[in-house]
């Protein structure tokens, strides 16, 4: 076999990594390399160094250590039955690429994942070695995100957390049944057990409680996961219920939703069509409402039909249009919880409303100054000088508030 050049391996192993949606480099402890001979810092939380034409930010060098894999998960381009070209980096090659790119300010750090070779432990150990070499040999202070191989040993997970800022274990699909169907070698319970272990370690590392010995550091940016959307038949209710369960059980920082996108040489089990990007977008919006706006899953899916979110309008507006009896809301009196449920009012706007209304009664113009677009808000509120009258019951309200589809230009 002809040896591949480093550049060729990079092409193959970055291509293999592009289907993972996680990218963020934020939320870690603040570190920098001042006073060391090393490089790196994490203080610039959330710097995106470039953007690909798919609109996604490039903040981390996202790579697979290898795309050889003994598993055969139908949705994955690296599954053992796929005919993609295979490649494998050495630990030193990944270390070198990371440092070379970091020194030129192309990236915030490394996001390393891998196909499973030999055994889960062997694979995890290689990934841990990359992170350890960066930290110990090169004094690298930048961001490191490692993908966890679910059934790797607890000792390896513990070490991974020592070097990495973030760890993630992909739940892959919204239901266990789908996972068993598409990924026969993966055990859903093993995936959740890995998350539970990480959660335990994260709890131990929290500096709360008695200030005894300083707890050992563990993945300061926490853990996250990814779920593939649209590869199986699960509806949005199943997806969001799964996410809510994961947030509550394992203290996840983020659940990433990744619209299933066609892969070359795809398994015949899968839908070969463009990725459902709008659905993915709506799910992120719904996830946001659950985490920051006090909505629960049944309420959110109530805004759509048959357990799926409405694709034409955002989930908060969809919910409000089906809950018209709760509106209009008096912005001068309503509590924070209810204000957060008004379409078009974000957390910032609500906080400003609450602060300002202590001084004087708010008018519609006051509210307009605090929001991006008053048009969306107007039918749902009452102010000193404004009442929507019957507008809230207008059968055409939905149509009026539905954004007109824009012609998308290719360039």
């Amino acid at each position, binding site marked *: 076999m002809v040896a591949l050049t*480093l550049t060729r391996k*990079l*092409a193959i192993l*970055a*291509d293999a990594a*592009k289907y993972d949606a996680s990218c963020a480099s934020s939320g870690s402890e603040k570190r*920098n*390399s*001042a006073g*060391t*001979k*090393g*490089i790196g810092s994490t*203080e610039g939380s959330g*710097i*995106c*160094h*470039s*953007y*690909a*034409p*798919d*609109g*996604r*930010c490039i903040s981390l*060098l996202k790579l697979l250590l290898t795309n050889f894999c003994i598993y055969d998960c139908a949705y994955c381009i690296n599954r*053992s*039955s*796929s*005919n993609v070209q295979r490649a494998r980096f050495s630990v030193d090659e990944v270390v070198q*690429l990371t440092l*070379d*790119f970091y*020194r*030129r*300010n*192309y990236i915030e750090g490394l996001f390393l994942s891998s196909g499973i070779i030999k055994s889960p432990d062997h694979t995890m150990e290689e990934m841990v070695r990359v992170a350890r070499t960066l930290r110990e040999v090169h*004094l690298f202070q930048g961001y490191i995100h490692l993908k966890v191989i679910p059934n790797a040993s607890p000792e390896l997970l513990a070490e991974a957390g020592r070097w990495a800022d973030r760890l993630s274990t992909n739940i892959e699909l919204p239901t*266990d049944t789908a996972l068993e169907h598409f990924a026969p070698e993966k*055990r859903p*319970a093993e995936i*959740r057990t890995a*998350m*539970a272990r990480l959660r335990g370690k994260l709890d131990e590392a929290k500096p709360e409680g008695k200030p005894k010995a300083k707890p050992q550091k563990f993945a300061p940016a926490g853990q996250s996961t990814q779920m593939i959307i649209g590869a199986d038949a699960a509806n949005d209710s199943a997806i969001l*219920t799964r996410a809510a369960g994961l*947030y*509550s*059980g394992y*203290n996840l920082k983020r659940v990433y939703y990744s619209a299933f*996108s*066609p*892969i*070359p040489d795809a398994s015949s089990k899968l839908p070969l*069509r*463009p*990725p459902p990007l709008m659905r993915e977008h709506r799910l992120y919006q719904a996830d946001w409402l659950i985490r920051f706006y006090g909505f629960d*899953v049944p309420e959110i899916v109530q805004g759509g039909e048959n357990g799926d979110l409405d694709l034409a309008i955002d989930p908060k507006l969809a919910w409000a249009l089906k809950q018209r009896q709760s509106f209009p809301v008096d912005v001068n009196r309503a509590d924070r919880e209810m204000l957060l449920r008004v379409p078009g009012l974000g957390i910032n706007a609500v906080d400003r409303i609450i602060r300002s209304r202590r001084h004087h009664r708010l008018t519609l113009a006051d509210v307009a*100054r605090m929001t991006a677009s008053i048009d969306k808000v107007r039918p749902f509120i009452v102010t000193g000088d404004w009442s929507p009258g019957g507008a809230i019951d207008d059968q055409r309200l939905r149509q009026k508030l539905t954004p007109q589809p824009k012609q998308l230009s*290719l*360039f």
Partner: protein
Amino acid sequence: MLAIRLEKLNDLDEWRGKARRLLAAGMEPSQIVWRTGSDENGLFEGGDEMLPTPDGPVGTVPRQFMELAAGVIQHSDPERFARLYRVLWRLQKDHQLLSNAGDSDNTDLARMASAVRRDAHKMKAFVRFRSLFEGETERFIAWFEPDHYVLEATASFFARRFAGMNWGIVTPYASAWWDTENLSFGPGGRKSDVPAEDAVEDDWKTYYASIFNPARLKVSMMKSEMPVKYWRNLPEAENIAPLIRNAKAMEQDMIERAATQPPAHHMRREARKPEPQQIQEITSLAEAREAVQSCHRCPLYEHATQAVFGEGPEHAEVMFVGEQPGDQEDLAGKPFIGPAGQVLDEFIEKVGIDRKRVYVTNAVKHFKFEPRGKRRIHQRPDGGEVQACKFWLNLEVEYVKPKVIVALGATAAQSLLGKASVTIGKMRGAPIKMEDGTVLFITNHPSYLLRIPDAEGKARERAKFEADLVMVREAIAALEKTP
């Protein structure tokens, strides 16, 4: 008219020193023009030499103003000094000025500060160093064109990030240099002052092209985050047009290229794989323990972490059966390790039951909960779930063969008695003989003791619970005498 000349384009201290002297002299904003660099003085403009140099404070400003000014002074608008002075002047009379959201001076300053912040942020992201060897030392030099005068304030970020590296950033108006110990500044320069290429750049472009997913093309999103004006200094930008041009074709190709014959290594591995094991009949406790992990008899498996099977010696004399694992048990995979488990342990020890002869388990093996934010709220399993899970409890009873079983709480009692409802109050306090000869006791679940709010009720219920366990102890002792 008074022309005030500033040496630097963005030095807050310099501006502040002059502004204080103007303030001390009572100079109105409209009487002043601000000059920098090569700006020429007008015909009837005087210098600032005659202004007084105050040695005490000349007025006060909110700290917020100084923070705002530190940003605004970096803005490229030539009016920035005048705007700042005008607000400073107005602040002397109106201390609340900055909190007036409708004031246009105010909003101008806020807008300028935010443009500067954004420019500094983009600088942190879009500077691209190129490596250059000078003898043995490797240096990294970048050319960057900021919209505003942000280099000086942003350079310290690069010094903290690239501490162990020798670097320089050249902009049209100034340059910054770091030699791994000191940060210094020099004159501006030109693009041709930095190396034209870098050995790693081709790899970076390869990475950029490979990480892009053509099935997700969103050009406007990219342009809003990475404005086109920056592209000329980003090496990867030359890939953008061809990637977009080919995206549709690449996506179509992915869709059309259906699965082909799997590669040989896959076929060999498949051939070596053992036949999928049929669910064998379970013939031991150990096998049951393993098999329960893939139980799908009811929907509870789907959201819990794992099945929590019983624990204890294989031939324990007494078996405690609770309702279901809780949050902590679910995470750890062990029964009775949370608060309720601690209460149980406390009483077992107190009444003198030998912990080593006890097997603990639950009527339902998976945790049932309702997600609420960052917590999981316990939910009682329903009759169907209890019934489905009885399969496993039966196996445990069959292999452990306890002589005494203690049902902790109504769910466990229902499961063991096969009844739809059980009132603990009525059934506790006396042994129940089961068909297979075991003796069943019914008592409260220990978590019940934790939920009683008043001290008196708590003490009463604890006493009852203890009395029930004393009976259990007696029953075990009696077993030893009757072989």
